[in-house]
């Protein structure tokens, strides 16, 4: 996914991507990433968990405005199925 992200960014559009594989992302080097230690298949969290999905989406959108260093990987540190999104 980072490869596609890099190609879009190179075209002139700012991008932010979620990664569930920080090790891969560190090597592929997309411009901005939000890293979660969540299982594959759950980048926005659990099904029907609106607050969790919303928080992660907002984190990503905020990162578009706050990241100034190319290659930054932000880690909000949510613990899978244990973090309370209230």
């Amino acid at each position: 996914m980072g490869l596609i992200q890099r190609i879009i960014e190179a075209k002139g559009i700012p991008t932010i991507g979620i990664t569930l594989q920080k090790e891969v992302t560190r090597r592929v080097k997309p411009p901005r990433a939000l890293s979660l230690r969540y299982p594959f298949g759950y980048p926005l969290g659990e099904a029907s968990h609106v607050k969790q999905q919303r928080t992660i989406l907002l984190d990503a959108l905020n990162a578009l405005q706050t990241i100034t260093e190319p290659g930054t990987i932000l880690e909000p540190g949510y613990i899978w199925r244990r973090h309370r999104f209230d």
Partner: protein
Amino acid sequence: MRKLGDVKNAILVQAFKHWPWLAERWARHHQFIEGKDIPWAPLRKPVRESSIAMVTTAGVHLKSQTPFNMEDPDGDATFRAFPSNANTADLTITHKYYDHSAADRDINVVLPIDRLRELRDEGVIGGIAPTLYSFMGHIDGPHLNILMDETAPQVAELLVQDGADAVFLTPA
């Protein structure tokens, strides 16, 4: 032999889901196309005024569209485009390399369309770009060149034409 490969794949999908460190370990020993310079496009206007586009590699598409090719072990480098105002009930996922049981119940797990619409309605974002783009993230071998040289640049160009001010990408 294909059956055996499918069984092996199904086991790996579950293993990577339950023990993510296995995937990290796999990643350390796997060759990637590594980035050198990092492309950078500054945000031109605040998010609340921006038209946001979404791109996913989770294999999402309209039920009426041709599914991604699951027969080729190197994957499928093509993409599907569908309107961002599509009814989520008309979407489906074709991707056998991750567990999409949760995303099948709620597409927002991989592509948060409903959440993005809520943020638009609340004025948190300026708008949603007219089209969403979807790849099937398992792409290897010769298909990587097709992705890098053809299909990903095509999507980038389409996003420019769509007037997207920023793009949010989700993996599987």
